[in-house]
């Protein structure tokens, strides 16, 4: 599904990702962990096409298609979804309106008609119920005045509506209370399927208790320094990152 080969990227003149390679197979769930500032969000944003980041080398392909050539909206319509670490507020823009525009942009890309208003509402309500979200969030401004946890749930709602091929969730578990964490995990698990790949960026083993990853990677200093199965996460919980940093430098 997702193939990253020897990717280097910089921002503001500083190289953040160095020669990074990562492969995520179809139907797999990967977790990426790593110290603050190691480049996890950078990687997520580069995959999604944020142009503040300059790709200086390497390639990123989705099912063989070169993603780096596409605009962010084209990548999104191709099925790349990024759950933001810090979802932005868009005052006055109805949450349902953005959701519908997003669904329709994707449908147009696939040559489908716009979604029927009734159908849309039914679908949105269904997904919200799954996530334990109050329907009033449909009529609020996008993330406007949402609490940290509400914003994260809203990201998952968008993902659930868009049913992406590749979902990258950047610290969607941070700032969630235990019920919200379960709801989000539930939402993600519901989306797990043999056709879909999921990349979870997280700091906490806790999330991985609810969403069992197939692979766990450690990103440090702009590269993947260790990959393993889910026991790696447990090991990190106990030992921290220093031993890996040392290993990488040595």
């Amino acid at each position, binding site marked *: 599904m997702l193939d990253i080969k020897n990717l280097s990227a910089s921002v503001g003149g500083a190289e953040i990702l160095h020669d990074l390679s990562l492969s995520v197979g179809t139907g797999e769930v990967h977790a990426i962990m790593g110290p603050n500032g190691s480049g996890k969000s950078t990687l997520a944003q580069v995959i999604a096409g*944020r142009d503040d980041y300059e790709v200086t080398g390497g390639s990123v392909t989705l099912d063989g298609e070169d993603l780096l050539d596409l605009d962010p909206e084209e990548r999104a319509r191709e099925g790349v979804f990024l759950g933001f670490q810090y979802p932005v507020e*868009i005052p006055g823009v109805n949450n349902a309106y953005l959701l519908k525009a997003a669904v329709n942009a994707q449908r147009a890309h696939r040559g489908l008609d716009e979604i029927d208003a009734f159908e849309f509402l039914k679908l949105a309500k269904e997904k919200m119920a799954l996530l334990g979200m109050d329907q009033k969030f449909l009529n609020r401004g996008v993330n406007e005045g949402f609490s940290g946890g509400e914003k994260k749930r809203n990201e998952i709602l968008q993902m659930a509506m868009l049913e992406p091929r590749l979902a990258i969730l950047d610290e969607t578990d941070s700032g969630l209370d235990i019920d919200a964490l379960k709801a989000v995990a539930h939402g993600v698990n519901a989306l797990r399927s043999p056709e879909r790949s999921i990349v979870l960026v997280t700091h906490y083993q806790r999330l991985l208790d609810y969403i069992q990853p197939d692979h766990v990677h450690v990103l440090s200093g702009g590269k993947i320094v260790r990959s393993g199965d889910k026991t790696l996460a447990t090991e990190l919980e106990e030992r921290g990152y220093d031993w890996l940093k040392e290993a990488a430098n040595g």
Partner: protein
Amino acid sequence: MATESEELESLVNRRYEHGFVTDIEMDTLPPGLNEDVIRAISARKNEPEFMLEWRLKAYRMWLQMREPEWAHVHYPPIDFDAISYFAAPKSDADRPKSLDEVDPKLLETYDKLGIPLHERARLAGVAVDAVFDSVSVATTFKEKLSEAGVIFCSFSEAVENHPELVRKYLGSVVPQRDNYYAALNSAVFSDGSFVYVPKGVRCPMELSTYFRINSANTGQFERTLIIADEGSYVSYLEGCTAPMRDENQLHAAVVELVALKDAEIKYSTVQNWYPGDEEGKGGIYNFVTKRGDCRGANSKISWTQVETGSAITWKYPSCILRGDNSVGEFYSVAVANNFQQADTGTKMIHIGKNTSSTIVSKGISAGKAQNAYRGLVKVMPQADGARNHTQCDSLLIGKECGAHTFPYMEIKNQGAKVEHEATTSKISADQLFYCRQRGLSEEDAVNMIVNGFCKEVFNELPMEFAVEAQALLNVSLEGAVG
């Protein structure tokens, strides 16, 4: 790496869609202004003596006045002698009695503007009075309205058929000497709309007027007078547009609203005069005086405006809250792009007891445009219990534009409650990326964010026009990112 501002600036390239010129014979007075020209205008319109006197008085006052210089706008001096003060389509000699008699080319013009009269006539609930250059061309739905006792006609017809009403109310809200452009308008106004809603009548449909400036070197000076008698209600919408021309054109209108006891007037404007090209060449100078008088107790006047056009806009729809418990509202979206300059706002004058006013102003600046809000809240000593809430929000797109806020307050009653809030924001790269990551194009993202910013104002527009206003806003900002 494209910077945010570069991207945003390149977004700001819009095409003006209504820039065609209608080729029909015009009956135009030679350029220049003197008493003879005024007599000629009055004679052509077969006006009664009192109208001519009123015009001449205004003209003499105008000669003594000077152009205002205080607005936050810049333009070369206007040569008032280079303007022609009257242009009517030739076919005016025998005025069309119904739509069938209207010059088909003219109707075609309206079609191009997206105002198919026939279409609109069928669309329930909207009566249209179309003012083409200086003369009101066709008014639909007159019959249905007259059943309800509502008078809705061109100003000229009102002078002819209801001189007593015209005489009583003309200039009673905006006197001839009010300001430079109002005086000029009073002297030379050619036509406009007239509405009278009798006591206790709720006007059965939205009333609507479209203005269009067609001839070159013609000034448009229309005059609108709306009277809502006791306990009545009317909602009125004006839409404006003009063709592309390299020269600047002058538009100096006057609108007077009178709301008597328990009456309500809702006045909405969607203004899309030609703003000039990307280099700032051409475009309409829109110098307009709009004022409403809440003359009776419990009366209410709301102004809602969406201003996307004109090279220069100078406009302050105001409310005089004279009646006790009267209410004034002002909801405004002003877009300025490229070299446009907008200086707009409102005045709320609290005179009666327990009067309240609300001001919501949304200014959007893009390109090299300057957008200024200028508002006055004045509370007179006798206005016990007066309340005002003002909210002024500015949205900047790009780095070379500007937003300015000039709130003035004159509070002469200690008990008055006056609140002012102002914000300035930008469309952030984060917001754009967020929307694009959800699959929206950059342009759709900008439109969506701008529409969200304007939501409170659009909510005030009548339904069918809210859609139009949104579309217009999108056209105005077309290419503003990308």
